């Protein structure tokens, strides 16, 4: 794009760009150097503070009790959210007002309420104490409701993205409404939606970290017990972030691969607050 906006750069412009590059490099290196210097000055680079993360027993705790539980919570809630989203997404497309409107209200409500508020409410009301469902399920249910509401939008958009002719042809063959939905529209819609669903896993995975606030198991909880023991908050947060980034990049790569495999060159499905390339999913 930049190449058509102006004429090809001449020697003077090229020289100027080279100067900007040099200046940019120097500035970035200076910033990185400053951070390293501060870390060194305040003794944060001391080996003792990093040691837990190369100690086998703590590494095992991070991977097994931390990562595994986090992945379980994330994928469990996404699976439940797919069911929730399917039901409410199809309900939002219903021809009957008494089905459509409640579904609309439920979906809009759970999309507008912060996950953490929901999590606190579920934990304090149903989770805590004797006979409660516990913090693990409080996290899973809160994430299910939020991601389910988002996925309901994805399902709706996915079904609407199937060309009109498909439904018309199915009706012309004499299929009933539910048959058109289940055997013609949904199978095609799922193909378009799969990348969006996988990207939603990234959001769910990131949000499991909120379980920290209600003492739910998972990566952040293990990280917390480590940094409370060694007082290495900075180092623990950096290691946790690196673990999240690694898994999320893998998931994003998977989503891109599925997109190419199933949807091909067609435009990816964009839904407000879900988008992939616009990356508005937070």
């Amino acid at each position, binding site marked *: *794009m930049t190449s058509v*906006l102006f004429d090809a750069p001449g020697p003077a412009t090229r020289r100027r760009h080279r100067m900007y590059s040099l200046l940019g490099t120097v500035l970035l290196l200076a910033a990185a150097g400053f951070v390293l210097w501060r870390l060194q000055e305040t003794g944060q680079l001391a080996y003792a503070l990093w040691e837990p993360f190369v100690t086998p027993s703590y590494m095992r705790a991070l991977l097994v009790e931390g990562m595994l539980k986090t992945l379980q919570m994330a994928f469990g809630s996404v699976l439940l959210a797919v069911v929730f989203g399917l039901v409410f997404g199809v309900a939002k497309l219903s021809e009957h007002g008494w089905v459509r409107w409640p579904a609309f209200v439920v979906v809009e409500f759970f999309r507008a*309420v912060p996950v953490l508020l929901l999590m606190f409410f579920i934990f304090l009301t149903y989770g805590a104490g004797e006979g409660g469902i516990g913090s693990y399920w409080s996290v899973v249910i809160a994430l299910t409701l939020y991601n389910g509401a988002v996925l309901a939008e994805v399902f709706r958009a996915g079904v609407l993205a199937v060309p009109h002719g498909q439904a018309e042809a199915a009706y012309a063959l004499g299929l009933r409404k539910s048959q058109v939905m289940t055997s013609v529209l949904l199978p095609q819609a799922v193909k378009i939606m799969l990348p969006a669903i996988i990207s939603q896993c990234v959001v769910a995975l990131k949000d499991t970290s909120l379980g920290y606030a209600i003492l739910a198991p998972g990566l952040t909880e293990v990280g917390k017990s480590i940094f409370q023991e060694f007082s290495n908050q*900075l180092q623990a947060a950096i290691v946790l972030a690196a673990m999240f980034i690694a898994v999320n*990049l893998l998931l994003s790569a998977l989503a891109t691969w599925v997109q190419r495999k199933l949807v091909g060159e067609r435009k990816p499905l964009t839904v407000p607050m879900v988008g992939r390339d616009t*990356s508005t999913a937070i």
Partner: protein
Amino acid sequence: MDDVISNFDLVLQAFRLTIELFVVSGILSLIFGTALAAMRVGPVAVLARAAALYVALVRNTPLLIVFILATFGLPKLDVQLPFFVKGVIALTVYTSAFVCEAVRSGINSVPLGQAEAARATGLTFTQTMSNVVLPQALRAVVPPLTSTMIALAKNTSVGAVFGLFEATARMRYFSNNNASDRTLIFLTFALGYVIIVELISAAGLGLERRGRVATR
């Protein structure tokens, strides 16, 4: 519920803090995010790559961990700041990455032919940008930016875990004290968030409508 009604000023105070967090970090992340996007589409390769790295790292990190870095990490570097400032830093660092992506996708959504046609009719770089490319890019940027801002408004709730007595922290406080009314308390606070989200979304729609032009 009587407790909430008689202490309703506490509810309003909490939402005021939520809105303050949202407005301050919203403005800052719009500025930083746009600067990042400019770096990413600009001709200087080093800056473009640095901005891309920043976005990739921050987007895949949970906000809670950014908050841990800001609230517990900064004091470790002998940087002492009030909780509000640390909250704003965490929210701005996180949201800037998403603003950058939204702005960049807006700029990229203007078809190449538009700029080519403008150049072919003899417009200069400045004219091409100000009369052809930017007006279209700004329109395309509004919907994703609205979504980002809505997410930011909801994300201020994470501050509740890190010493900020905003709406979510206040709900936890009331819920702890009034076990029998938890559902009503939750709905009251949820309604507050719904109103904030609807206001942002209405503002976004208003901007979209103002800029709308006839398209094929």
